[in-house]
């Protein structure tokens, strides 16, 4: 039941968006953060064959079935997280980047991230003055169950504070910022460890950027009707 083939025609030179009919799974192994259960991962492969030619392209990615929710708790003002409907106490660490000359290696990522899991952490926060971390970083967070809080490239020190205030309106080119943000989201969005996008460090991005980020990153209406136990209303199915 986990293999599905669809047929479609694409006009010459066309660029189309295609959505598969949803694939049903009965009680799949869920992905859990470090300390809450196994980090079950599935390999999803998408391939396209063209009549008269054969296999034209192939894509694959590790995928984890998990539902992550978070909200600001009115009593404490802190952000509460739930994974697969279960509340989780966040034990997190700050992350800037693994090498100041960007000699980023899988081996280094694996070692650093396993170290965080061994320290019994379940979240890593990628600081806004560093990088949008790389797929290899997220791959090992998927493997070792570290949720990731990923900040965009705004910091309180550089953007809109200080005497005199520096860069009160953030970067010069807001369209470029949004282009980079959108492309980064597309690069990283399929990783189960990705838990939270954050506008910046100790600072709210400029109004137009913040609004655009919130708009682009809001949950698609199709998935919005979730109730407490993480179920959607029946009619959605």
């Amino acid at each position: 039941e986990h293999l599905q083939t669809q047929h479609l025609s694409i006009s010459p030179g066309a660029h189309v968006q295609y959505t598969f009919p949803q694939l049903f799974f009965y009680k799949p192994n869920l992905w859990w953060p470090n300390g809450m259960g196994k980090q079950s991962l599935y390999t999803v492969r998408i391939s396209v064959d063209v009549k008269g030619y054969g296999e034209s392209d192939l894509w694959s990615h590790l995928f984890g079935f998990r539902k992550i929710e978070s909200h600001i708790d009115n009593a404490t003002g802190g952000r509460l997280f739930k994974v697969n409907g279960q509340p989780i106490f966040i034990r997190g660490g700050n992350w800037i980047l693994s090498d100041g000359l960007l000699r980023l290696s899988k081996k280094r990522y694996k070692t650093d991230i396993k170290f965080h899991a061994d320290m019994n952490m379940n979240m890593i926060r990628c600081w806004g003055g560093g990088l949008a971390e790389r797929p290899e970083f997220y791959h090992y967070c998927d493997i070792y169950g570290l949720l990731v809080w990923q900040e965009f490239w705004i910091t309180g020190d550089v953007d809109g504070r200080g005497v005199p205030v520096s860069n009160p309106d953030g970067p010069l080119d807001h369209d470029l910022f949004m282009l980079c943000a959108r492309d980064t989201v597309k690069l990283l969005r399929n990783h189960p460890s990705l838990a939270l996008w954050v506008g910046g460090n100790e600072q709210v991005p400029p109004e137009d950027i913040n609004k655009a980020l919130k708009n682009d990153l809001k949950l698609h209406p199709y998935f919005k009707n979730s109730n407490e136990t993480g179920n959607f209303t029946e009619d959605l199915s």
Partner: protein
Amino acid sequence: ASIGKTKLDSGWLAARSTEVGLSGTQLTTSHPPTGPAKPWMEAVVPGTVLATLVKNKAVPDPFYGLENEMILDIADSGREYYTFWFFTTFQCKLSENQHLDLNFRAINYSAEVYLNGQKRVLQKGMFRRHSLDVTDILHPDGQNLLAVLVHPPDHPGTIPPEGGQGGDHEIGKDVATQYVEGWDWIAPIRDRNTGIWDEVSISVTGPVKIIDPHLVSSFFDNYTRVYLHASTELENRSTWVAECSLSIQVTTDLEGGVCLV
């Protein structure tokens, strides 16, 4: 050529742009560098200009003692000093109806690409991917020459004598990492992390290309009834209607090497 991605992560050379008297067209046609002979050196790709200079001991290692003080800061040297050529070759012979993309997963901060004498521009921005369809400019004999001229961020800034978090904050005018002017936990990075800092690859496809699939799951009946929603962009780069069969397959490896399909 077989369908799929090949990383270009070895055999790169680098040289300071001010020390190379040739154009990108000449470098990728009549006058390619032949090896790590001055001004060319072995390059670290992916990595930064400074990583290449440290590897070749052209500068002291900034992580030891006060050696970072011995390295010329871009504010004092000017942006050209850290504007570098990166050069490599790759072999690729396509069959009919195949396409080749040249992919840069991240460049800091902008670049000009020359392939077999043809120029393409990679726009500014440290956190964006670039994918160039280079099918039409591949060399007929399969041996391709690639040169990339990488420019530093537009606003590298100047480090005030007292240092401080983010130096003079000029780097914040660009869409780039901000720690590079120095912070309370790190000294300034002299090249502001200029370079081909993430994966370079070539990918072969047939007439139709899969772009950025998106996978989402939804949960019902207390996580016992689960759906996987998958969508993807597709591009038909041929001149005829492509009749496609699109397949999605989900597998998981159970213990003991048993694979559930």
